[in-house]
């Protein structure tokens, strides 16, 4: 299958990455060559193969749902690009 410019713009929209119109052409070319490479997998018949979902021989552990941390609001807010007392600030979302 091949990816056209429109499809790439749509995927970029889904990924929340704005793509320069000027770069769409070269991106399309690169992604098509990568997909051509990936599609070698279609040579293989995998009808009877179970998908591998975990490489570990153990199942994931569970633990008690207890608070082991906390009272670190300042630490968490420290790296925020914009904050206001105890909140992260984003551009206005409601009128």
């Amino acid at each position, binding site marked *: 299958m091949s990816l056209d410019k429109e499809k790439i713009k749509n995927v970029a929209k889904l990924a*929340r990455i704005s793509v320069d119109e000027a770069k769409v052409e070269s991106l399309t070319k690169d992604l098509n060559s990568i997909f051509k490479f990936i599609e070698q*997998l279609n040579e293989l018949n995998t009808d009877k193969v179970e*998908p*591998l979902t975990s490489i570990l021989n153990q199942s994931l552990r569970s633990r008690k749902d207890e608070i082991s941390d906390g009272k670190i609001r300042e630490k968490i807010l420290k790296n925020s690009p914009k904050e206001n007392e105890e909140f992260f600030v984003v551009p206005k979302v409601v009128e």
Partner: protein
Amino acid sequence: MTEITRQSLNEIIEKVKTKKISSTDLTKAYIKNIESAKKLNAFVTTTFDQALDKAQQFDNKPNFDQLLPGIPLAVKDLFCTENTKTTAGSNILNNFIPSYESTVTKNLWNNGSFLLGKLNCDEFAMGSSNETSHYGNVINPVGDHLVPGGSSGGSSSALAADLTPATIGTDTGGSIRQPASFTGTVGLKPTYGLCSRWGIVAFASSLDQAGPMTKTIQDCAIMLESMSGFDEKDSTSINKKNEQYSKNLKDNIKGLKIGIPKEYRVDNMPKEVDELWEKGKKILKDLGAQLIDISLPHTKYALPTYYIVAPAEASSNLARYDGVRYGYRSKQGKDLIEMYEKTRSEGFGDEVKRRILIGTYVLSSGYYDAYYLKAQKVRQLIKKDFDDSFKKIDAILTPSTPSSAFKIGEKTNDPVSMYLNDIFTVPVNLAGLPALSMPAGVDKQGHPLGLQLIGKALDEQKILNIGYAFEKNCGFKNEIKKWWS
């Protein structure tokens, strides 16, 4: 005193223990080297004042029983370090100062070492040449026109140039082993789950593993012992007793069965790589190991599988960079969605964007079965190839890379040719196995080449032992001339 930095980690530890050098003088020697090696661009951040303080503290109250007594270490800038900027080689994290320490670095510090600085790497560890970093290309000390490999390129460059006695990297598809091979150093990717992923900037979580990069096999054993161990904070961490890899290191490999996979002889592979592989086989045979021809029939499908699985996981992991809670935020963007889109467009480099788009596409509705599910099935077949082979052998010997270090800019315009660099390293990540790259010789231009030993899950000790025996009999010496200072 300048010569101390040329020595192995193990020799340096001995010198510190016998008080032939103080931690402070050792640290100063590395600082001097780092300051005169700016051309290599191996460091993103240095922490000299903090390191000298720690060295002084050690000298005032030394504890020589630790594995890494008073040893300064630089680490890949993918490990979160408390109160020290952590960029992952990306513009989107150019101002990120973690308020916590990764488990692996914490383990290193608990064993007596301290941070010397943060090493450059490909952006989010996506690259094979350290040319995707926002902080510029790293240069290979082997030659001023050569890449150091990637993604742990700052790590391999700094180690080979004597800017740190040992270091750590991360390996998702070869990012420790390939740069080790390109710089004539040792690199180990441990079994998936042996080293905690907690506090490491995530790329592809089912493949990512941290591991040591060192000058010798013994150093590698010391570092692995220091950094590994069970961690409750990583849900895929393996709960088992810590091993004493360095104490248990043995060079007797008589009777071990070494598999030689026929699929690792690829088209257009330079003759020298093949000859080196032959040399490696002969050394192991002369040491009493038994060589056994094996087949890993799905090898050629490993890279295509990887380029579905890794971008899919990356697109999901990197969704967190939205300009809200930490990292870079675009000044543009009238509303929330536009702010996200501009932030991610300005914050990520081209290779990262490419992989996020591939990942988003293969996971999108209508395509999931054709790509992601298919890749998971082929991953099963690749793992089964190894499982079947390991019923009759102890380890596998292959070349680490299909070529020696290539020129800066040589492969940047063709993503697929760049990806092909990892052809021998990627299958191991898909199967979750441990693998070691060890220096074995040079090509006709004098550039180092490595051989790879692949082990069974959690069989690190055995591949370290084989590597140890190999190293003693190989006669490789890294002859890097100091052209950069």
